[in-house]
């Protein structure tokens, strides 16, 4: 009887240990995936924050530009989450940091001047709380390769005409 009990206890412990290991592995994997997803949202979240630093009338326009450019910044980083994070965040941090200068450059005054510490705290909270950021629907997909400019633009602008040859780096069209 004692031997049977020992076997039962041993089997129970083994099964419990296996289950525990399985659960831990699953939780670890879920945490990893969640962290990856949240970190992947950082660049777009930074751009959203940057948009709050520019006047309202510029926001839609700049949001469209920065979002689309971010998509191209991240091209080629599929399956490389760390590279994707670094490249996207570098681009977005630059945008966030210079949002005031960009607004001023367009001749408007930035609505907010973010103190770095405030901005950092706000950013940390914002990143953790965002869950409603739309998925990366605007990312170029592998099935739709990027188009060269010649295909994108129906006609090349021809506002400037030249005559003669243009030495140096400048390539001009002879009239």
């Amino acid at each position, binding site marked *: 009887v004692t031997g049977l009990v020992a076997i039962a206890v041993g089997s129970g412990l083994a099964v419990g240990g296996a289950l525990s290991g399985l659960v831990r592995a699953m939780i670890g994997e879920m945490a990893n995936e969640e962290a990856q997803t949240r970190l992947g949202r950082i660049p777009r979240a930074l751009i959203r924050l940057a948009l709050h630093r520019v006047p309202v009338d510029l926001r839609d326009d700049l949001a469209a530009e920065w979002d689309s450019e971010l998509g191209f910044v991240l091209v080629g980083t599929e399956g490389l989450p760390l590279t994707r994070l670094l490249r996207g965040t570098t681009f977005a941090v630059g945008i966030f940091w210079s949002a005031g200068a960009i607004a001023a450059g367009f001749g408007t005054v930035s609505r907010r001047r973010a103190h770095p510490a405030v901005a950092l705290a706000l950013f940390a909270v914002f990143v953790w709380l965002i869950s409603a950021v739309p998925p990366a629907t605007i990312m170029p997909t592998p099935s739709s390769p990027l188009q060269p*400019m010649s295909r994108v633009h129906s006609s090349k602008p021809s506002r*400037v005409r030249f005559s003669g040859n243009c030495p140096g780096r400048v390539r001009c069209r002879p009239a």
Partner: protein
Amino acid sequence: MPEVRLTIPVQHVLRHFSADITRPMYGYELMQGTGFRSSELYPILARLVAAGWLARERETVDPTLAGRPARFTYVLTPDGVARACQELGEHSARPPHWSAHLRVGGSG
């Protein structure tokens, strides 16, 4: 229109445009070409757009067909070409010979 201070980074961006002055360029493309970060490039582009040197236009693509959103392009305006030519010539040790051949908006 606001005046543009022709700082060295601004000159660098303009020189990049001058490589092919009729070709519209994307922001990221300019970042790669000039080596500037987004924090450096976009304020310069904004100043040049506000000053009328650059035209900023949205691509005419259908996002659903292209599979991506329309991007924004920057191209030198005729005024921008003339002024860039003049200013870069003044700031360059070697006069840009191509400036002598430039005809803006003319028949050539």
